[in-house]
């Protein structure tokens, strides 16, 4: 009896020991995978997701890495990350400087996605936000040197909306204009055609992921003139007008004209010519 109790004790001990070993091993594996994933999930700035891709964290939960979007991309823009690349392995991406997105109106990559990692709600390619073009280097962009280039402006599929040319005075020559490309986030899809087309050795205009490209004003900020416009009038009590203590015959115009001397009044202490004032008292010399 005691014998069998002993052997039961031993087998129970062994069982629990085995369980503990397995649990520890599996937990270690989980830790390893978890740590590796932190690294693997950090998307490099040059890797852009296909149109309609969910926010990166949601995308990595929804994309099954099947490559159907890659297969249906007619321009071979998209590719799947391979093991060892910086992009989370098996997920689709493109590099604008190599092959940009051609912005197909029927968006075949989204249609191909079986899981909705590429949002099927996106039906207008112009509404996609794969990234945002940024003129990252004004020192090398030749438009800023006063040269006519405008390649990014002309290649842009949403021409004159996503990129406009703003004229500025060329202070170097003194008589020419600079044709400065300016990107507008309300229209730019991040397709990357501008980055691909940039004539420099290294593009001066680059498509960056939105979180890198966009700033954000503090939520508490209010722009006075916009608030005034919204409210239809001033939101603060009007200023008390300052009362100047002026000599007789003089007024102060608050609308911008400043000090006004009434014509008909007594002669002023100063003449029209400032030199008269300077010379005053020196007439006898």
């Amino acid at each position: 009896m005691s014998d069998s109790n002993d052997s039961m004790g031993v087998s129970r001990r062994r069982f629990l020991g085995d369980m503990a070993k397995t649990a520890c091993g599996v937990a270690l594996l989980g830790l390893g995978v978890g740590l590796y994933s932190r690294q693997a999930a950090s998307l490099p700035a040059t890797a852009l997701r296909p149109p309609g891709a969910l926010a990166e964290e949601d995308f990595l939960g929804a994309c099954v890495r099947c490559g159907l979007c890659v297969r249906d991309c007619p321009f071979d823009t998209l590719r799947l990350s391979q093991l060892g690349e910086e992009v989370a392995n098996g997920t689709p991406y493109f590099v604008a400087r190599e092959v940009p997105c051609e912005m197909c109106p029927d968006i075949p990559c989204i249609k191909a996605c079986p899981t909705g990692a590429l949002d099927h709600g996106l039906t207008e390619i112009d509404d996609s936000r794969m990234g945002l073009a940024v003129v990252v280097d004004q020192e090398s962009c030749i438009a800023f040197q006063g040269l006519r280039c405008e390649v990014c402006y002309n290649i842009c599929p949403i021409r004159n909306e996503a990129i406009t040319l703003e004229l500025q005075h060329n202070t170097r020559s003194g008589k020419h204009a600079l044709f400065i490309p300016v990107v507008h986030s309300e229209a730019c899809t991040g397709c990357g055609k501008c980055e691909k087309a940039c004539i420099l050795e290294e593009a001066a205009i680059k498509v960056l992921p939105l979180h890198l490209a966009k700033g954000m004003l503090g939520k508490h900020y209010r722009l006075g003139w916009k608030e005034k416009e919204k409210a239809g009038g001033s939101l603060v009590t009007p200023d008390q007008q300052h009362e100047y203590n002026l000599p007789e015959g003089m007024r102060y115009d608050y609308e911008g004209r400043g000090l006004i001397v009434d014509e008909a009044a007594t002669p002023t202490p100063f003449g029209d010519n400032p030199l008269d004032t300077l010379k005053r008292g020196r007439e006898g010399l």
Partner: protein
Amino acid sequence: MQPGQRPGSEAIAGKGWWAAHRWLLLRRAAQLSILALFLAGPWFGLWIVKGTIASSLTLDVLPLTDPYLLLQMVLTGHSPEQAALIGALIVLVFYLLVGGRVYCSWVCPVNLVTDAAAWLHQRLGIRHTAQFRRNTRYWILGLTLLLALVSGTLLWELVNPVSIVYRSLIFGVGFAWLLVLAIFLFDLFVSRRGWCSHLCPVGAFYSLLGHLSVLRVSAAARERCNDCMDCYAVCPEPQVIRPALKGAEQNTGPVIMSGNCTNCGRCIDVCSKDVFHVSTRFNNSTTSQFAHKTEVTP
């Protein structure tokens, strides 16, 4: 099996080489033709099947999605599109019919690697390798589901050798060959049949399906068994055989009911007494339908 003899040699002597390798060859043909279907597109422009084993589209109409992957996705909090749901349902029903781990032995590409390692392991006569508990895979399965739930991303897919191997064959190898080599060496030197039969969470998931599946191997003529042990020697999950083969006294039916059985059919091949047959879970009565044939001489 006589000492010094290789498993299956009696069957080869009795039935001939082809008959003693029938299921193995069918299985290899299935694995390679499924792979060929996937590769025909990128290699020859024959787009019959697009995608990978994770999710695919056949002839532009039939969606197929790995239900294990879909389960993880749901745990991340993403609600998938209809195509993925229908695809996973089709796959689920298919494996519930033909056997859960048919995925492992008839489809999965890693099986080619681990079978090769097991074969070489046996040929080289390597002994004393580490043994994991066979239920470790369920722990890892639980871990992968937990990781998906906690991280909100398909974490396991970053390292899952099954999908990486398939994807790398179709979309470009990268460093995936290192992973294949690692699994091969692991199975060869560290732990015999370590990956597929002890650790792989994909196999664990399909094992769970296998508990319910219909098509099964049955030791229908178990009275004929001459205890040669060849079936145990070739089986990747030998623990599943015993209850069915030796269960007559315990009044256990002859059908292999374990979810871990991969339905590879290798036991059918190597048995010189034709003990095993393909059957269904419903043919599990304890009285043998082959009882009247027991007198047949080999």
